[in-house]
């Protein structure tokens, strides 16, 4: 028997206080019927004797204390899973949004998940070919990795995530692949762009979407990534699929969390975000991975916009502390119409060494990216010097490196959003670009590899 309470005593921000409640449990979800008969959903944040603090996903607008009825459902928030979720679109709290029928759940899973036992993890080490040179060649992604995209307002992160969803494959294996997409506070246009892109390629059949748009209730965003990861865990670890999860945009998620924290009058941390933001984000990001004895995997690409392009802002900062690297978008490259504008030097895939080499990509991969990276770093310095002193002031050496950097940007970085390069194409392109240097300058590459792969020695 569910007891119904009409004892709301306070409403503030996205929160509501209900009094005289018996048997409430921390974290349980509640149904809220407001004066006009419509329903909202909430979750218990704190129970203090008979006083219960509830966060309301759809917001408190239009709620009054007197006519609101609250029912406690005695369970945490859940999502009903079955293979039928593939091809479906849900809202931010998991209700069908595509006009289709309700999903007949095989089982209901707690969306908060459980921590993965570190002993149960399998180390991510299988190379994923994304077809994007700056990622495959220089910052390889592996199955089970969490690799965020640090973007900024007005930068084309939607294009690059769509490209990733379209092109990412593990080569030579006929395994089943799925995309789970969680939109948090992004525009209708951005969400539609992604959906259309998946539809065009037919990938939509293997996709599950959770959509919370910019004009949807902000507090829902707390649940959205957890819904998405619950779906992903089911598909990966019970149905054996290779799942790519895209969370876009985590900055909006963090703002929702900040709003609740402010309403609770918690001591604010940096920029008003709560002190537990790191832990909260970790309970989302750490759900990526591979597990011993399971075929599937969860690879995660969170997208976030850095306010003022500031990498030290709490959202990118704490994300970077949890994820296994970061792909950073560059406004300067974007202005030069280089696409995708990946800022190679500060980008990093921490698991790169685990997924490449002889049996995985090619034996020259590691030496090659070290050399390309070093040469580009030097070329960038020369580029900068040239803007200050003029090109003529550069030493012949520096001029050569600058030329390399220009070529590298124009050909290696810039490839557009629809060119899908195999890893061999990416690697060979690297060699071709390096051929402008004397062999003796290529200090980071083993001499034997130069003899084998440098274009002039081939064939």
């Amino acid at each position, binding site marked *: 028997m569910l007891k119904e309470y009409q004892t709301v005593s306070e409403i503030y921000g996205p929160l509501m206080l209900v009094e005289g409640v018996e048997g409430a449990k921390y974290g349980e979800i509640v149904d809220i019927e407001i004066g006009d008969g419509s329903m909202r959903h909430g979750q218990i944040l704190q129970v203090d004797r008979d006083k219960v603090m509830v966060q309301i996903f759809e917001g408190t607008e239009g709620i009054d204390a007197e006519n609101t009825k609250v029912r406690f459902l005695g369970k945490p928030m859940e999502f009903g899973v079955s293979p039928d979720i593939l091809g479906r679109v849900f809202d931010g709290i998991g209700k069908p949004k595509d006009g289709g029928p309700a999903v007949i759940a095989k089982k209901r899973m707690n969306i908060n998940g*459980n*921590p*993965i*036992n570190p*002993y149960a993890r399998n180390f991510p080490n299988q190379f994923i070919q994304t077809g994007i040179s700056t990622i495959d060649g220089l910052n390889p992604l592996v199955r089970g990795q969490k690799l965020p995209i640090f973007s900024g307002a007005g930068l084309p992160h939607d294009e690059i995530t769509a490209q990733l969803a379209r092109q990412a494959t593990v080569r030579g294996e006929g395994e089943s692949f799925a995309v789970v997409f969680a939109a948090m506070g992004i525009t209708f246009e951005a969400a539609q762009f992604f959906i259309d892109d998946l539809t065009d390629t037919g990938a939509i059949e293997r996709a599950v979407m959770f959509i919370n748009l910019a004009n949807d209730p902000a507090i829902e965003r707390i649940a959205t990534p957890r819904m998405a990861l619950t779906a992903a865990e089911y598909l990966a670890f019970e149905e054996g699929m290779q799942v790519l999860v895209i969370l876009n945009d985590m900055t909006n998620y963090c703002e929702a969390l900040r709003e609740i924290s402010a309403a609770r009058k918690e001591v604010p941390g940096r920029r008003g975000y709560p002190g537990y933001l790191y832990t909260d984000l970790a309970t989302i990001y750490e759900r990526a991975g591979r597990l011993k004895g399971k075929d599937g995997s969860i690879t995660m690409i969170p997208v976030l916009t850095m306010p003022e392009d500031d990498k030290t802002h709490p959202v990118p900062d704490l994300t970077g502390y949890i994820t296994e690297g*970061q792909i950073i978008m560059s406004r300067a490259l974007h202005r030069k119409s280089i696409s995708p504008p990946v800022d190679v030097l500060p980008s990093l895939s921490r698991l790169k060494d685990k997924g490449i080499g002889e049996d995985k990509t090619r034996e020259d991969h590691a030496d090659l990216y070290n050399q390309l990276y070093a040469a580009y770093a030097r070329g960038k310095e020369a580029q900068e010097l040239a803007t200050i002193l003029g090109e003529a002031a550069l030493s012949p050496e520096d001029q050569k490196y600058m030329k390399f950097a220009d070529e590298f940007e124009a050909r290696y970085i810039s490839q557009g959003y629809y060119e899908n390069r195999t890893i061999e194409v990416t690697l060979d392109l690297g060699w071709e670009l390096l051929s402008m240097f004397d062999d003796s300058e290529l200090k980071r590459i083993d001499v034997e590899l130069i003899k084998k792969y440098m274009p002039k020695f081939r064939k």
Partner: protein
Amino acid sequence: MSENISGKIVKVAGPVVVAEEMGGSRMYDVVRVGEENLIGEIVELHGDCASIQVYEDTVGIGPGEKVVNTGAPLSVELGPGLISSIYDGIQRPLDQLYDLQGSYIKRGSAIPGLNRETKWEFKPTIENGTKVFGGDIVGEVQESTLLLHKIMVPAGVTGTVEGLNAGSFTVEEVIGNVVGDDGNRTELKLMQKWAVRTPRMSKKRLAPNEILVTGQRVVDAFFPIAKGGTACVPGPFGTGKTVVQHQLAKWVNADVVVYVGCGERGNEMTDVLMEFPELIDPHSGEPLMKRVVLLANTSDMPVAAREASVYTGITIAEYFRDMGYSVALMADSTSRWAEAMREISTRLEEMPAEEGYPAYLGARIASFYERAGRVVCTGSPNREGALSIIGAVSPPGGDLSDSVVQATLHVVKVFWSLQGRLAQQRHFPAIDWLTSYSFYKQYLKDVFEDVDKGEEMAKMSQLSMILLEQEAELAEIVRLVGAESISAKDRMVLETCKSIREDFLHQNAFHKVDTHTSIDKQYEILKSILHLHEQGLAAIKRGVEASEIFALKVREEIARSSFIPEKELAKVAGIRDTIDVQMKALSS
């Protein structure tokens, strides 16, 4: 005793639960919370009202449910079976949790820290009838090929040993008795317990006076840590804190390593679990895992257990120290520990100090690092043990004014400052040579058996630092007026510094040979670099063109010297002859 006191939950706020009717309870008593018997610890008492931090997820727990006091503080089990284990923050074996629960950690399991079935071969080292005191060693168990586990009389127990026999025992079986003057018998077992928040005692503290060799060149030669010393590694994300910690755990010349993964990535612990058993200890030729205890309370695991993990780790480390061993503890990252403290404090509605951290943050950090040290252990035989602590710190945005960094710098004696700039240039370890420091540098010379060699190493280290400081000044001048304007001598300094940075300080953790460099090889490489410098300066004096010196072929040999296997050490020393030959060939 506070055992069996039973109260009722009145409030649940995240990891903190408040219960009433808990009168008689003591601070830090462990309690079981709710119908599911979650494990918690009392962290505040007001009258009969207790605030409890719960080590497991509290979702689904509510007012009215019972709380039962176990009467004991949070303790660890100490005895054979610790080595090669992987535990969570409250010493639950993660491998056994996996067997029991599968991939995800669920609630309410209280698996003991030490296996109850394993039999250990015990050999007494004292005769029956011997009078013993707490801390005295009564016998040994060969726990792993790398660790001889000393069985000690528990603290506070005094009397005459009876019935002590060699044999095969589980950790709970009685191996003998200690009979006190009053006739009271205390059973001796292979296992004892210790409350984690109480430091284990020692007879006397001594100042650290010996270098803990890590095989990491920038550390050993420039900013060494001592046995019993303390060090911190702060830096923004991606600068190499974890790699430094892993490298130390792998190569440090300690007898036991306790590695605490505190609120960091799950995959990093998996990495350790998969890699360490494959790595061979250079000193003994045995797998490294045979001297390691792992604690993993990753960022997605409950925060209260994360708070406890650091104490669980240090207590285990102290226990091995008390056997007379040199123990090294790595904590990655202490910032996540501090954040766990902050989260609990917030839920307790304590008055926050800076950045929302509790006012006692500094005191907690200081008393944690105070548990490091070189000591005379309690009990006989007389022995010395050492416990070194190396803590990673993860300041927001890499800002060193952060409360945790500042509180840590107050107490630690070694500071390895990781710079984002160096990491981005892929100069690893990204330890900044200009701002880092070590208070233990004077002991560097004693690492060498040969006194002269030791003195020379100390001098070379000092000279290199002076050169690197000159480099920073010269670089400024070059930036302002161009490279042509400085003297040939100064250009030699710049070239030598480049060589020190790229050929000595830079060290690739993932290269088979480069990952570890013996102190003798460090000496040889540095000596070759500085020999070239000296010879170069002399050549410039005799009128040799500087660019000819910079173009010498031998410089490539120096650049590759760190990749020369230890077995071929003579080759590194031989580089100096090549330098002399090539220098002589230069015309003046």
